[in-house]
């Protein structure tokens, strides 16, 4: 009989140490990193790696235009952004954008 590996999602804090549990479940971890702890030059380097840019204040899209949040149309500032999985989406950090993102891409583990 095939091994039944049930998917379990959990945040980085809820680390499951039990080896038997890990063997019998496909444990999915999602690490949430606070951008407040990342210096601006590292944020810009990450954005460039993802195909975006920055002009010192705002995030730029792949054409060098100031990026607008796809859900609220707000300009996305370096100091108030979210970078979320799903083709590396860069959004303005506000509840409406987060709710729209979760509706479109599903809950984060």
């Amino acid at each position, binding site marked *: 009989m095939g091994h039944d590996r049930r998917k379990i999602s959990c945040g980085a804090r809820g680390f499951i140490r039990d080896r038997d549990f890990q063997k019998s479940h496909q444990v*999915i*971890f*999602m*690490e*949430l*990193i*606070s*951008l*407040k*702890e*990342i*210096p601006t*030059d*590292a944020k810009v*380097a*990450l954005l460039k*790696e*993802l195909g975006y840019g920055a002009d010192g204040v705002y995030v730029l899209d792949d054409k060098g235009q100031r990026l607008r949040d796809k*859900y*609220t*149309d*707000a300009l996305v500032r370096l*100091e*108030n*952004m*979210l*970078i*979320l*999985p*799903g083709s*590396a989406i860069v959004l303005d*950090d*506000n*509840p*409406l954008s*987060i*709710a*729209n993102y*979760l*509706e*479109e891409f599903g*809950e*984060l583990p």
Partner: protein
Amino acid sequence: MTPTPEEEVIAGVTKGTLDFTADRIKAWAARLANRDIAFIEDRTSFDVVADQKRNPEWSFYKEYVKTKELRVLIRIGLALRKLEGGHANLQSLRKNILHKHGKKGLHVAQLVQDGDLGAFIGTLLSKQMSKADLGAAIEELLLNVDKYVVFIKSDIATRRVIESTAARINANLPPALLICGSKGAKGTAEVVVKGVMKKIDGYELSIYQNKVKVVYLIMRDESPSDD
């Protein structure tokens, strides 16, 4: 002097945060594609929305409401409720909803925030409706929030609101209409409801109230007639 454990921890965190090599940046980008990392500004404000997935009320709405825009607004309504109490982001969130979803969107979020939608559903559940009918009734109400929900303020002209609400019911025969009043507007809402009920036929009235609010649910009487 030997550093204290707390100082060692702080030093470790500082070293960790300064370690932003090109390889690490590339690894982060790869992990984003793998959906096992996300970058957020502030955990608390992120969790106000994301943690609704653990809220049983959200689980209920998700089950019954299928329109994506409504689901977003419901989730935001629950977040607004959590942010209540003078949170700085409350006003800017309301502005965002208004900008993106208009007055109608704001009313849907407000209906959820104030618990009026919950009161409406509680009444529907007592009528033992099927799951499909219940979902349809909830969506119908939310999609037509401007037609089917009347928010009463204490300073309104009651006679005019009674006339317009009764006329709306008699013209459209909606399955349900909510009249909501909070705090100082509770008495005004009662006057309006009494006036409206005198002008319509074939509707029954249910009331949900607590210390701060009252919700009158005027529902079409679906029981078979004798003739």
